[in-house]
């Protein structure tokens, strides 16, 4: 009877898609259990079933040996299991207090909601978890991290001893992740059990005891983390034995080459200041920094998504107009935006249309589009980036996350850019797709393109010939190839590097 | 009380609610009202209920608060006005109802042309012209309009009684020219031998003529292909078309007389005069509809090109100076 929760022989279908196929998991009391698998493996579906949001088509869920409550009895579920879902369950228009106390308000006499008590209890809750947020704030005005912690605090407030975190770190920067982990360790000491989902395998090794791997809707293996080496874990996830981390053999580009991208004195009040750097053909420059450091904004300014207050951006000597994406594209800038759902893709449109959205002029004369030409280009991209799809006519909404990201990459490469700007290009992408995408970036650089990677993921940055570390809107350090993880992290956190 | 707020000039204040301002007929009524008010020495407050009876009852309140001594209105919905009439009765404000007769409640006088007579005149004219046989399309107004219903019923009754060999296709049109044209077009396709059209209002005039033109049916009255068209209202455009031989007749609603006698009776009411059923001094008859409701039935002349008599009804020529359409 040591298991907190157990799901057995769970099968779940969505239409003709099998999300879970006779899969199961057993989470024991006190452990921190990792659930890993590639995009679409069925992890979030299992979470929905374990938290009573969805009923399985077949199979059973038990808590501490007792059968799960009825689906309609939400409170009973929430006493057994708390969850921070992959998709935000914050309601932006409501206050933080109300989000915390949603559907369990304190009532005064006459049965009406007593807002004073609600706010006070919400405040106590946040204080207890050391979240420093005014509970009267509109939730939509919170930063990503604040929002995440409000969600976590809310999940924990139900008194459940079993907590599921579905990709909680996907949107947090390193410092916030560290704070989250400190928190989790704390709770674990108090006997709380965790089910932790992440695509960052190093996090699994850092915080988890047990790991369960799903692949293609099936349970593959459950083992203590310590007994499963990284290579084995990846093999279980991908179903192949091939080792991944082949050491790179990149040679830095020749020193003499002229700058393709020249950023000079770029400033935007309150966001970043006096940012200047150059990128040469074939060079990969990393823009590192934690959340709020301004790296994303600098990258977005280069590609025209934002207008800077001052400074210049030149590509092959031509000055770009500020805040004009079309001008940047015309000058030969290609880019992968930060969030593929937000800025990367038009979900209802086909792979072909999405991949060629930036190059209408190449699809036909005088504003007309040739479907054949589009499909030829898209088919080439599908081939080139190994996108798993039956053809260019498929709506991107039907692709998995990793493949969607490849379509975004295809779009970035469509205009054969001289300068390629990538913003967190591998966020939310599983480990295989990530390797693949990074290899492609390298290949592009080798062909003579200047690449800028704005990211805080060490895996992305490791690719770079040099990284520029930003802190509070300024470039504070430049690390040449061969930097140690520790130095990069320290610089991103604003600590001065000694030596 | 506020009833004494009449102007410094000492002229009695009256209120007139215009029923709508989106037909030629009512617009000329709206044009005539201030003119006659000036003639009769009345001070005028006006509102417009835009064909909405809820607005009418609110307008009545507004007029009352402006201290009017009498109100003329033309409730397009004759049932719904009863509560307003009751309010006015308790405040002893006399009401003259134009064009329609309230179903319930007292009014000082109803000034109205006999809508049943419109339908009958149109029927007699078409029956005569078609020699009592053939097919006729009637472009009705809105099902909800009492005037439209009166015309429809009278036309149908008269056809059944006097010209049973004539087939009538009745089409509801919501007083909308586009719908009228669409329905007429369908009927003309289905029955190319349609020989007569009765339009219950001038709204469909231009569209009908256009359609006949498109189908090469817009020919002189002596041509065997001619389709006889009877319109209703008597707007200037109709008179022109009759003179040109494009349409054959219309019933001229007396817009000017509506305005004139509405104010005439209001002034009389304020002056404390009363009326009895019988002939009037202006070629019409007052009848008692029910106790408390008198109705002055103004004559509405049939207008035809030759001014002849049809089925016992004498008509006038389109250039007759007595027609309101010739006086704007």
């Amino acid at each position, binding site marked *: 009877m040591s298991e907190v929760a157990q799901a057995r022989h769970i099968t779940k279908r969505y239409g003709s898609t099998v999300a879970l196929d006779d899969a199961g998991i057993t989470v024991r009391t006190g452990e921190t259990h990792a659930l890993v698998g590639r995009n679409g493996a069925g992890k979030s579906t299992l979470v929905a079933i374990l938290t009573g*949001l969805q009923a399985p088509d077949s199979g059973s869920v038990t808590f501490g040996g007792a059968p799960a409550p009825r689906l*309609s009895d*939400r*409170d009973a579920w*929430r006493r057994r299991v708390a969850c921070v879902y992959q*998709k*935000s*369950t914050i*309601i*932006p*228009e*409501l*206050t933080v207090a*109300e989000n915390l106390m*949603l*559907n369990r308000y304190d009532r005064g006499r006459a049965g*009406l*909601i007593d*807002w004073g008590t609600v706010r006070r209890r919400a405040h106590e809750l946040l204080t207890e978890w*050391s*979240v*420093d*947020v*005014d509970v*009267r*704030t*509109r939730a939509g*005005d*919170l*930063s990503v*991290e*604040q929002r995440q912690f409000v969600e976590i605090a809310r999940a924990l407030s139900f008194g459940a001893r079993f907590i599921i975190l579905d990709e909680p770190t996907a949107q947090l920067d390193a410092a916030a992740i560290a*704070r989250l982990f*400190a928190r989790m360790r704390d709770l674990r000491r108090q006997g709380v059990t965790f089910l932790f989902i992440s695509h960052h395998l190093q996090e699994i090794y850092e915080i988890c005891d047990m790991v369960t791997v799903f692949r293609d809707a099936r349970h593959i293996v459950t083992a203590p983390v310590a007994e499963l080496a990284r290579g084995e874990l990846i093999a279980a996830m991908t179903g192949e034995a091939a080792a991944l981390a082949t050491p790179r053999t990149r040679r830095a580009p020749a020193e003499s080459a002229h700058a393709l991208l020249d950023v000079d004195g770029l400033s935007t009040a309150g966001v970043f200041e006096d940012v200047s750097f150059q990128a040469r053909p074939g060079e990969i420059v990393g823009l590192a920094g934690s959340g*709020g450091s301004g790296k994303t904004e600098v990258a977005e300014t280069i590609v025209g998504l934002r207008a800077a207050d001052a400074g210049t951006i030149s590509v092959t000597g031509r000055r770009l107009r500020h805040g004009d994406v079309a001008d940047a594209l015309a000058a030969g800038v290609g880019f992968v935006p930060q969030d593929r759902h937000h800025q990367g893709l038009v979900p209802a449109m086909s792979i072909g249309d999405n991949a060629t959205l930036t190059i209408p002029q190449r699809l036909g004369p005088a504003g007309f589009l040739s479907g054949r030409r589009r499909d030829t280009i898209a088919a080439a991209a599908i081939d080139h980036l190994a996108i798993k799809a039956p053809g260019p006519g498929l709506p991107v909404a039907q692709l998995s996350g990793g493949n969607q990201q490849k379509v975004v990459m295809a779009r970035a490469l469509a205009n054969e850019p001289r300068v390629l700007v990538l913003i967190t290009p591998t966020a939310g992408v599983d480990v295989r797709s990530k390797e693949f995408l990074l290899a492609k970036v390298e290949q592009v650089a080798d062909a003579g393109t200047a690449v800028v990677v704005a990211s805080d993921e060490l895996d992305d940055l490791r690719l770079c010939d040099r990284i520029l570390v930003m802190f509070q809107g300024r470039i504070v350090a430049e690390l040449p190839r061969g930097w140690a993880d520790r130095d990069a992290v320290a610089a991103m956190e604003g600590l001065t590097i000694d030596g | 009380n*506020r009833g004494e707020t009449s102007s410094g000039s000492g002229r009695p204040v009256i209120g007139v609610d215009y029923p709508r*301002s989106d037909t030629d007929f009512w617009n000329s009524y709206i044009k005539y009202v201030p003119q006659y008010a000036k003639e009769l020495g009345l001070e005028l*407050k006006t*509102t*417009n209920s*835009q064909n909405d*009876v*809820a607005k009418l*009852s*609110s307008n009545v*309140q*507004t007029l*009352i*608060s*402006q201290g009017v001594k009498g109100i003329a209105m033309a409730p397009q*919905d004759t*049932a*719904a006005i*009863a*509560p307003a009439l009751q309010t006015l009765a308790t405040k002893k404000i006399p009401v003259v109802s134009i064009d329609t007769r309230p179903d*319930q409640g007292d009014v000082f006088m109803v000034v109205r042309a006999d809508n049943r007579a419109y339908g009958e005149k149109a029927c007699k004219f078409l029956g005569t012209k078609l020699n009592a046989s053939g097919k006729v399309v009637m472009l009705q107004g*809105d*099902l*909800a309009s009492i005037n439209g219903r009166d015309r429809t019923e009278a036309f149908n009754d008269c056809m059944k009684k006097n010209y049973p060999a004539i087939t009538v296709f009745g089409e*509801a049109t919501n007083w909308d020219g586009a719908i009228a044209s669409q329905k007429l077009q369908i009927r003309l396709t289905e029955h190319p031998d349609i020989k007569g059209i009765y339009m219950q209002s001038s709204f469909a005039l231009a569209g009908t003529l256009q359609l006949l033109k498109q189908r090469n049916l817009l020919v002189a009255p002596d041509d065997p292909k001619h389709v006889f068209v009877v319109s209703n209202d008597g707007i200037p455009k109709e008179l022109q078309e009759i003179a040109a031989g494009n349409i054959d007749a219309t019933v001229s609603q007396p817009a000017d007389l509506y305005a004139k006698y509405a104010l005439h009776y209001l002034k009389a009411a304020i002056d404390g005069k009363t009326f009895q059923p019988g002939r009037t001094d202006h070629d019409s008859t007052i009848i008692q509809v029910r106790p408390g409701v008198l109705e002055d039935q103004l004559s509405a002349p049939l207008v035809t090109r030759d001014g002849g008599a049809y089925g016992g009804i004498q008509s006038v020529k389109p250039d007759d100076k007595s027609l309101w359409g010739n006086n704007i």
Partner: protein
Amino acid sequence: MGELTTAPPRRIAGGVALARLRDLALVPAIILIAIVGQIISPVFLAPDNLINIGQTMSEVALLVLAQTIVLVAGKMDLSLESTFGLAPGVAAWMTVAVGAGHGLGLVPGGWAIPITLAVGALIGVANAALIVRFGLHGFIVTLGMLIVLRGLLTGISGGQTFFMLPDSMMYPGTAMWFGIPASIWICLGLFAGGIVLLGYTSFGRSLYAIGGNVDAAKAAGIRTDRVLWIALVSASTLAALGGLMLSGRLASVAASQGNGAIFTVFAAAVIGGVSLNGGKGTMFGAFTGILLLFMIQNVLTLAGVPAQWIGALNGAIILIALVVSRITSGKAQE
């Protein structure tokens, strides 16, 4: 336990105050109109005229109340304007005696109010079934319903007006309570209830949660489908009640009752700060919206604006109100 987060952005505190102020956003406009009205005609602020405004707006105000509930929950109900006519229409049809009043005289007059409300509720059930149960798009379902219901009223009435209504139907629209028309009391009472409902009950808060993020609401244990059913059904029932009040005031049900009212209803709700995308807006705001529109109409009438220009002026004022609310709220509207 280190601090988890950074300091909250500065503008937030101001934001809270602003959100409360937005509720009162129309109050200056209402005062302005009152002043202008009084200047134009000394009658404007006379009790009689104020009662006149209150009574004429009370019925449509119930539609605004109903629509606000639906809008906050992130849906739309265009068919309210038809329910406004059809529900009392059916009641009249069944209770009014055969003959001049155009009814069937099937049941005694006392049934009129229950029938009205039942028809309203039934229409709500039909809407909810199509929208919630079958997942059809609310805008287009209720657009279809608007056309069907309007057609049904024309059908049963033969396009004519029902009158000689039973006394019970007349009551809500004609009774006076403490010297003020009952319909004003009913309207004010229901809005007060609406303010409490939306602001201080968990049902009301569920509406905001659903309108704001339906998945989050589900995860929080809110029975979203049930809440939406209740919202749609009570909105329709409120619309039926509004129609009943109008029928009583006019002592009749016209075949066209309610036609076109939905435009006014949407304009009032939006000017009053209710978002068309759900999850935002208050009952008080909605009330100020409809009040403002009716005051404007009253002023235009008193000012003797030529009828053909009233429509254009009214529309222009609505547009201006929108632009102004855009400027005061300071960000792109939803």
